């Protein structure tokens, strides 16, 4: 790695931290503006109880003091206890939900990568044949259709009609309930990757070095695998980081449709309950994920593609 590259990476990390700081700050102040609060109840709490709760959680302090205190804790990932779920730590609640989001996100991402690269490459090498055309139609449909539609269609066919998997994981063990969510979460990225790989492979196939390799007498499969793939998947690497983060963080719809107790559901509930620490915890986690994966993706990109200009 040269000096320029190290400097570039450090700069990106610095920018990432700054982004995190901005997200943390904006969340805090916007949360204060939202009407309602953590102690509103159908049966009102007495003033004494509200005062005691405010004191216990430091909400009786001036807002700026609260902000600084929270900022300090957010930087070390300590968000305290939930106001809603009595006696439970925010990090524990988030981890509990994150297991599901991460598991499904990772499985969906791997699935999307394997299927997407395979289909994209195959379609490119069989350009304008029947298979290629079919793939193009299907991927266009998958990219265009919102995930709540595809998720519901899958649920209706496989869980409700065919009954091959349960409709919800509540009280059910095993991986059965997670198969459909993984497929639903992977549809969009699979389609996107397929199209990405197809067009970049087509681009690569026409390059001079490919023709050279071919004229050396190498088999077409070998030419593609050894010389083509590395170049044709470069755009996928750029896409993979943000995609992975968005599958994990953006699976709200899928969590809702399949009744998954993921972090997305906790995020929505925390806002409904005005559970400040949990709102902060989930927002910061989601922001951090996006920042880290985008960063990792950019770094991977410059490693794979040394021609990147750092200026």
């Amino acid at each position, binding site marked *: 790695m040269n000096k320029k590259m190290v400097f570039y990476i450090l700069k990106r990390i610095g920018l990432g931290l700054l982004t995190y700081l901005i997200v943390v700050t904006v969340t805090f102040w916007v949360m204060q503006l939202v009407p309602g609060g953590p102690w509103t109840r159908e049966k009102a709490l007495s003033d004494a109880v509200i005062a005691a709760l405010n004191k216990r959680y430091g909400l009786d302090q001036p807002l700026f003091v609260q902000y600084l205190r929270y900022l300090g804790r957010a930087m070390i990932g300590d968000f305290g206890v939930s106001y809603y779920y009595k006696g439970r730590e925010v990090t524990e609640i988030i981890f509990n939900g994150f297991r599901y989001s991460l598991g499904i996100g990772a499985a969906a991402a791997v699935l999307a990568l394997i299927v997407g690269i395979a289909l994209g490459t195959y379609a490119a090498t069989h350009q304008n044949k029947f298979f290629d055309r079919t793939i193009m139609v299907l991927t266009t449909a998958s990219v265009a259709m919102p995930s709540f539609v595809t998720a519901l269609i899958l649920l209706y066919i496989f869980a409700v009609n065919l009954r091959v998997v349960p409709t919800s994981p*509540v009280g059910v063990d095993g991986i059965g309930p997670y198969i459909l969510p993984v497929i639903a979460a992977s549809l969009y990225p699979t389609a996107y990757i397929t199209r990405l790989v197809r067009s970049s492979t087509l681009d690569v196939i026409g390059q001079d070095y490919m023709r050279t390799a071919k004229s050396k007498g190498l088999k077409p499969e070998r030419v593609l695998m050894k010389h083509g793939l590395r170049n044709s998947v470069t755009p996928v690497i750029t896409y993979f980081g943000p995609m992975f983060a968005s599958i994990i963080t953006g699976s709200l719809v899928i969590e809702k449709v399949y009744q998954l107790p993921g972090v997305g559901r906790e995020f929505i509930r925390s806002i409904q309950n005005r559970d400040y620490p949990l709102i902060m915890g989930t927002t910061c986690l989601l922001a951090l994920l996006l920042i880290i994966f985008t960063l990792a993706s950019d770094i991977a990109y410059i490693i794979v593609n040394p021609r990147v200009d750092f200026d």
Partner: protein
Amino acid sequence: MKIRKNSWLVLAGTAAMALAACGGPKSQSLTVCLASEPQSLDPALNSAVDGATMLVHLDSGLYRYQKKGNALELTLDLAEEISKAQAEVIDHEPDGDGWKEVKYPNGTRYTVKLRKGIKWSDGSAITADDFIYSWNRASGASLGGDYCYMFEQIADGVAHETDDEAYPSLALKKVDDSTFTFDVMVDVPFMDQLLAFPTYFPVQKAAIDANDKEEAGTWATNPSTFVSCGAYKMSAWEHNSYITLVKNPNYWDAKNIKLDKITFALSDDDNAMLASYKSGEYQMIDSVPNEQIDTLKKDFPNEFVIAGQMGTYYISFNVNSTVFSKAANEADRAKVRRALGLFIDREYIVKEIGKAGQIPANAFVSAGLSDPAGGEFVDHNGAKRDGSGYYKKGENDADYKANVDEAVALLKEVGYAYDEAQKKFTDFPAFKYLYNTSSGHQAIAENVRDTLARYGITVNLENQDWSQFLQTRKEGNYDVARNGWVADYDDPSSYLTMWTTVSGNNDCQFGRGAHKDAAIYEADLNNNGTIEDNEKNLTWAQSYDVLMNNAAKETDANKRFQILHAAEDVLMSTGAICPIYYYTDIYMLKSNVEGFFSSPLGYKFFMYCNVK
């Protein structure tokens, strides 16, 4: 716990086990679904009905509910004997910034003798100290429990609730390890219900000291630290998925607990719940999708249950709203509000929107509450005390038309112009109807809008999310809003206390702002039940607040209820409470489950169930 998949294997396995046991008693278990993840299972912190259902299985109090024939009765649980005697009771009540001593010569001292040998689930003894510790903990504001006010019946409850260091305890005294006393100013008839209420359940100090160093309620979030004192103990809590209870061998009455294991699946998705019920994964579900009710009633006549519940769905008016501009004074505004309430087509709402057997309401205190005069409180409501309420329920066309005629007359009286040909008002101001975001509330709001539109009255709908909605209503920043109330115990005070001037639940803003000076109310302040000598031209504080204060101090049950009926008269005369229906509790229960019962507070009891 594989339920759906391989269920025939499980079935075969169960059959094999039953054969192996040669007809010995089969292990009995149930999987039920009430709601999603509970907020807390610390009895002092829980305020939800589903949490209360889990708590009546995990823990126990001095009394418990049991089914006797078709009725519910309270029987002694952890207590062997509870006796009471007249005593001079000293309470400390607010006096400026401090407290003044108030003596109640006709107060009552309760003496509680606990059963011998009662134990926590960890085997240690339950003593009088446990109760004293638990009640003082639950009733102090510093714990932050929603229900700390439930101890205000006990002397020094109010002073202790404010965390004033001078009052570290309620009026509780330990006599010996298994005996303690507590003092109440007025021996209210619902005291035994309070003693069966989850907030009054004991908690183990050792478990709390060991686990709640950082945050109250931590001990109750994990089966390994959850120490219980009831029929069951917690064996698993998979957050957002399920909670499993198994029989507690240390419970004093364990031999009469039929069911060995209860699994509470945690979900609030009606459709998913119903799917799991139909497939046999769940034996009981506590809610169903509204649009399915008609089909379910037809398809599962023996399993779809509509039970009574003590609760009222109503519309509240802000008495300080000036939106009804032609109504110059409070008396006119009362007429306008009453008129708007009369237009509402309750029968349609109940039949076509609610669909769950709700009862059209014509008073604030709901059906289901008992009255010492016999029957229910609602059987004696209304000006004539004959149960006719405060207007016709509109159950047939003639009744509804009578309501509409009265409404039209009232609005004309106030001065609004009525087009007799069109049968519409032409200058009634448009107003905003506020509800919290939910399809059920929206359907009712739309019906109210459409009904009033027929009479030329424009209603604009506005919805807010729950937390914001509660705040808006509480602060009185609204004109008209949907509202609802569910009783905490079977006594009308659970409904009527909320409308005193100082109450935190006084969403109508009675006695506040401009309404403070409106001297238009009449009330039976000498409590003889005769309307002719009602005192007239009283303000809210001089009428309603005084009545509620009198009721709180009255020891004669019949007299007390007369006062409560009189208070409801005053309340309903404002027109600011427009009742729509009394709630029901709908659930589904498999027909092979015997011995189940529920209480009008919505608690479900599974411990005496027998699965055939």
